[in-house]
């Protein structure tokens, strides 16, 4: 199998820029720290020297295509991991960008790591991280810690749902399969708790929300021109939560708005500075949709009718929903 390396991707990007196929590249670059990788736009071959590809490149670029296809007359090159391709298709279904303006190169992915899990092992003061099968962390205290990559994979990668690319113009490396994942185990665990325990759990999680809107801003399904929570004309506009229900309202409504459209890419949980397991809200809807209306994977194909804009005359009654799952 062809190993996907930084140099391979840069080489691809340079050749596509040079032969005029694209005039802009969406990629990753280093932020303040080694583990702080941020999305970036590269406008020419020269700028690609800052291009990074390692185990911290979790960012899903599909949403960035909305803004960036508007800026170009030609094409944008985007690198898509398997999970990103689902968001890519979902956005196409919703007419959010012009497919003609995108050159999609799909790349296999063997999982991205979670810096919080690394930090839990290495402790604070990380100075340098070297990625690979083994991750080497050097701290400012001149300590070196070796960690197995498998031990610090992000939650969404541990429970990876698919290594298959559902969209691309060109595929680097080999395509994978849709996986049997244990991603609903956590949801089931919550479901089996008592109502009081569940309330305690979510009260604990959601009350930490600081309404920074990072989950919303990164979410490829949250692509409203103006969010209903930001709109002064809407009756629910608010900037910050003043008490424990406000953020429940925000997160329930947000999850409901993306229900049936969420591909479970896991970006919301990745970016949450408060480490709220937001994916557990989305997965609850996904699990219910699968159980109630038949298996549905958002973004698997372009143009499918999402479960909430569809119905059958035989659907279960809301009163049966809690028992029916």
């Amino acid at each position, binding site marked *: 199998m062809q190993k996907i390396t930084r140099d391979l991707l840069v080489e691809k990007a340079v050749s596509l820029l040079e032969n005029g196929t694209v005039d802009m590249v969406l990629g990753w670059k280093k932020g303040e720290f080694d583990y702080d990788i941020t999305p970036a736009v590269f406008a020419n071959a020269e700028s690609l020297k800052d291009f990074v590809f390692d185990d911290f490149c979790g960012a899903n670029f599909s949403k960035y295509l909305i803004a960036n296809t508007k800026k170009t007359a030609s094409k944008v090159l985007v690198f898509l991991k398997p999970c990103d391709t689902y968001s890519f298709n979902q956005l196409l279904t*919703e*007419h*959010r960008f012009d497919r003609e303006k995108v050159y999609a190169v799909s790349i296999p992915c063997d999982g991205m790591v979670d810096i919080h899990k690394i930090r839990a092992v290495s402790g604070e003061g990380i100075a340098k991280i070297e990625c690979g099968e083994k991750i080497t962390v050097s701290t400012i205290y001149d300590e070196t810690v070796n960690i197995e990559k498998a031990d610090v994979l992000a939650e969404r990668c541990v429970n990876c749902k698919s290594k298959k690319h559902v969209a691309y113009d060109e595929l680097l490396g080999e395509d994978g399969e849709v996986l049997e994942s244990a991603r609903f185990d956590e949801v089931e665990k919550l479901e089996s708790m008592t109502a009081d325990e569940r309330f305690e759990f979510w009260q604990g999680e959601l009350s930490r929300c600081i309404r920074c809107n990072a989950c919303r801003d990164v979410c490829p399904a949250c*692509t409203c*021109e*103006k969010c209903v929570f930001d*709109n002064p004309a*809407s009756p629910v506009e608010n900037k910050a939560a003043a008490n424990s229900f406000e953020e429940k309202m925000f997160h329930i409504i947000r999850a409901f708005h993306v229900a049936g459209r969420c591909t479970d890419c896991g970006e919301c949980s990745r970016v949450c500075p408060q480490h709220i397991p937001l994916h557990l809200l989305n997965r609850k809807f996904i699990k219910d949709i699968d159980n109630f209306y038949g298996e549905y994977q958002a973004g698997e194909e372009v143009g499918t009718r*999402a479960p909430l*804009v569809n119905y059958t005359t035989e659907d279960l009654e809301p009163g049966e929903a809690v028992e029916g799952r």
Partner: protein
Amino acid sequence: MQRIGVFVCWCGSNIAGTVDVQAVSEALKNEPGVVFSANYQYMCSQAGQNMIIEAVKEHNLTGIVVCSCSPRMHEATFRKTAAAAGLNPYMVEIANIREQCSWVHKDMLTGTEKAIILGKAAVAKVNLNTPLVAGETPVTKRALVIGGGIAGIQTALDIAEAGFPVDIVETKPTIGGKMAQLDKTFPTLDCAACILTPKMVDVAQNENIRIFSYSEVTEVKGFVGNFDVTVKKKARYVNEDICTGCGACVEKCPMKKVPNEFNLNMDNRSAIYIPFAQAVPKVATIDPNHCNMLKNGRCGVCSKVCAAGAIDYKQKDEYIQEKYGAIVVATGFNPISMDKFDEYAYNQSKDVITSLEFERLTNAAGPTAGKLLRPSDLKHPHTIVFVQCVGSRCAACAEKGKEYCSKICCMYTAKHAMLTRDKYPDTEVYVFYIDVRTPGKSFDEFYRRAVEEYGVHYIKGMVGKVFPEGDKLKVQASDLLNNKQLHIDADLVVLAAAIEPDKSARPLATMLTASMDTNDFFTEAHPKLRPVESPTAGVFLSGTCQGPKDIPETVSQASAAAAKVISLLVKDKLKGNPCVASSDELMCNGCSSCERVCPYGAITYEDKEFRMPDRTVAIRRVAKVNPAVCQGCGCCTVVCPSGAMDLRGFANRQIIAEVDAICK
């Protein structure tokens, strides 16, 4: 800020008996926006209405809350009152303190308390009301009928009779449809041609009717009263206006081996053909798949023999654009394919036929000139087995057949059986059935005559297998009433194939944004109360495109659809419902969710230019609601995450204001 007047009605003692009306009007005086509050014995009386009109003038009211009976009773009354006072009628809200308060609560304290809360909710809503004006759209006074079978013919004739121009679009070279292929019609046994062809002639001669035969609808735009339709007139290589239908070309055409679809391919026709003698329009059509001249330029006989000079090998498809006020769908049905029913050996033996083929075999204009002969050896059959429900009522084998009852088969099979016994008393006739369903005027009498007077053997049970052996067809069947297995050596087996909507219906439904059920039958706007209207305004349903029907039912529905069309076309303008959805294009991101849930196809998208803060111009896809088509259900508003889509008269803010007022 609104200036709201509150009017609390006593309704005699109906309200005042359980609600302290004085307390209600006092309490509501203090609500935001309220500048006047009063109560009166009968607000709906002339005196009550005058009181409202005077208060509007005296206090410069901009909104009105009436606490009274249900809005279903008097909302319209008070809206008229508001209009009389110079207010927009939609600045009125009703608090239902009779049906939903005084009549269901017994205690004065409880009733008064609740009436105040309901009043507060209405005040909160009126504070956010805006004047609404119903849009008006003109009506194009011309109707389109898609499909020229008996349904389309009847609808077109009725509309034309009322004085409106009608166009019929028919895919076949002639109108007439399935009925033209039938022999006799149940339960009166008149000959189909004798009652149909005069109607076809009426259509041809009616100056209000145009026939686009050998044509199809390729595009539909617009909405009720204003449809823009493109019709493709396929090239028939014969100039319709000149052709006299003399038939010389048909006679002389050397290519005579083309399967004749009118006779269900049981005989042949020529490459240039007129489907049947009474075809309308009676003009020839060249089949480009079989004409040597068109295929390789070697022939030209028809052109030489045509005295009128009507043959035109260079004719091209023609696209006609026309405006219509209403569209009637009459696309009809077809028997389902028998390919999946191998157990009946349809594809193995020529002597296993469908009921429609049987019609042609017994029709005097059919391939056997009306003599009942086996297709294989043209011998007279002595034993005939009819199998009912082939592909109908097929719950278990849904992918093979249809779950529904095709409705017409019981009766036509009784007809076939009876006519066979009548003409050929030496023939034994067996009918295998699940149930015999004969509701309809004179239907059961007809069926009983077949059994009692004509000696048809009706056997409850299904045929399991048919297989050819020698020149016989071995039929294995069960007799459920006698609990026996039967083996019959038959000469002919007739399958009552289920019927399904014509294949053209599905793409047409998409063009019309009309909804269909899972079987591809068009859905009606209401199954009981609006059976001939599609939920899409301005689209009407005629005949079997809506569900299986016999001829009498088809004709009644066709006339009903015509009546609905006429009542639409007599209007000069259509007044809309102002409580419709509308999209804020600044917030819409064009995701299409609203379009997908709209049952009326009222939402379309357009690319619109927006000036961005950085002075660039961005093009964005945004939703547009056609207020003439929207019926105001509000389904779209909930799938719109940003709230760009909102419903006038029931806006998000208004409903939440009511919620807040109630929960306060």
